[in-house]
């Protein structure tokens, strides 16, 4: 597998909303390429007619009774927020 390009690294970082320095991008190009090359060994496996496993449990939908129960109070829910205003999480403007 060819080495990841700088553009590919930047595209993935964009998807992950992850800020990276130029140095980090270069290092990740190297390291991710090496790891992916190693991981490509799974392509040797014949997986025709093999179901993908998403969970090890024999469960499908788990329902609970539709009953109310106490939850966090407003103060508890907001206690770790970086910014609060009028009992709400304060965020930056997203619409002008």
């Amino acid at each position, binding site marked *: 597998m060819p080495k990841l390009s700088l553009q590919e690294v930047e595209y993935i970082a964009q998807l992950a909303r992850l*800020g990276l320095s130029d140095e980090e991008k270069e290092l990740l190009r190297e390291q991710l390429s090496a790891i992916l090359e190693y991981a490509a060994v799974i392509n040797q496996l014949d997986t025709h007619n093999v179901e993908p496993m998403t969970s090890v449990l024999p469960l499908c939908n788990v329902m*609970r009774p539709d009953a109310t129960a106490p939850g966090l109070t407003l103060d508890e829910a907001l206690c770790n927020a970086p910014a609060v205003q009028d009992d709400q999480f304060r*965020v930056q403007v997203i619409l002008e």
Partner: protein
Amino acid sequence: MNTTELCYLSIHVALDLLRRGALSARELTQAYLERIAALDGLLHAYITVTAEEALEQARRADERRAHGEDAPLLGIPLAIKDVICTRGVRTTCGSRILENFVPPYDATVVVRLRQAGAVLLGKTNTDEFTMGSSTEHSAFFTTANPWDLERVPGGSSGGSAAAVAAGCAMGALGSDTGGSVRQPAALCGVVGLKPTYGRVSRYGLVAHGSSLDQIGVLTRDVHDAALLLRAIAGRDPHDATSLDAPVPDYVQEMLQDTGLRGVKVGVPREYFIAGIEPGVESAVREALRVMEEAGANLIEVSLPHTQYGIPIYYLIATAEASSNLARYDGVRYGLRVEGTDMWQTFFRTRALGFGREVKRRIMLGTYALSAGYYDAYYLKAQKARTLLRQDFERALQRVDVLACPTTPGVAFRIGQKLDDPLQMYLSDVFTVSLNLVGMCGISVPCGFADGLPVGLQLMGPPLGEAILLRIAHAYQQRTEWHTYRPPLPIQALGG
């Protein structure tokens, strides 16, 4: 008894002394806090020590005893890995992004330990968001291995393992996504149990790989592991993936030591490969011989997809992690580094809040899930995971448990694998498969190589904890490896 002796009591012996009134929870807790104060400057096992709260819990435990009450862990001082939420006590996950996060609720396991009467000493160090095998990826500091302070304790539950090995906690909780309980237990010479996926509630465990994560216990002997598992196991309405299966009395089952006669122990040939350190292999072979001498039948089995375990694991775990860690956006909790607009705030917050291993895994996982690569990496890995599971199902039709080394080598030097992520990942080669197949496993001390502990791993079928504990206990009854203590510098203890 002096402080050191008190701190090396096993939980079951301490409970006996507490019940007879020969020891108070306050004395015991005080002894642990003194030892932590003396040693943790060398070990760095704890991120947060909750001395005042612990003494208050101990006082209450003694009060309850004075009123004739008892509880399964009443007055027992334990440590909690810092990825498990504790109400009112900072829970950092070893990350800058949660450096000041104080959960408004307790994880279910913490609720259960409190109900059982445990005293909580503090929160132990971990690789950031449990991503690592050495604690070197903690944002705060690296924990030292009590057997050699220049070496890693393993990870990610390295703080819990080091604390238990050094007598700085009587037992501890960890979490295991790809070996994070068993590997540090092996490297520090203690017992580490990873229960079946779904056996223990994950509510309040900060998520890494949701289809793999499971809370486990670290203790100095198998009896203590059974006591802790009994306290935390069972269905929890807050975790839809927790299993609605009855919880056996693990202690009683374990104590029915019927010996090892007739027990079928599978020895997977793929776990005895080139690359395993000779000292590790010989210690594990000797453990197998001890079990055979006690009547066990050793049967060679094959888990043919073993070599695919690491790539399958690192594709699935990172994919799940990249999705789980999307929540750290600086809005509801954690660090926020404000930029000119909301988008820049996201990028800056995550750039400064996450360390290099977490960034690497978010990138890898995002790549594996991205359009064009999903089928080749993520979906392919999920299919390969099915094949791996079939290996285990086939082998466990023939045998009761599987036995192998927990790790291919002993504790490595701090810094040795830090710049080579692939080498670091390969140290998990014998532990990741068990998480992928969702079954249970335990690591028990089985000797030393170059003066460093070696772990024997036993792996069992879904909900097979009782048989694992019974076999591990029978092994421990016939060996003394779990009784050795690390040679910690005496001057640190004040002479």
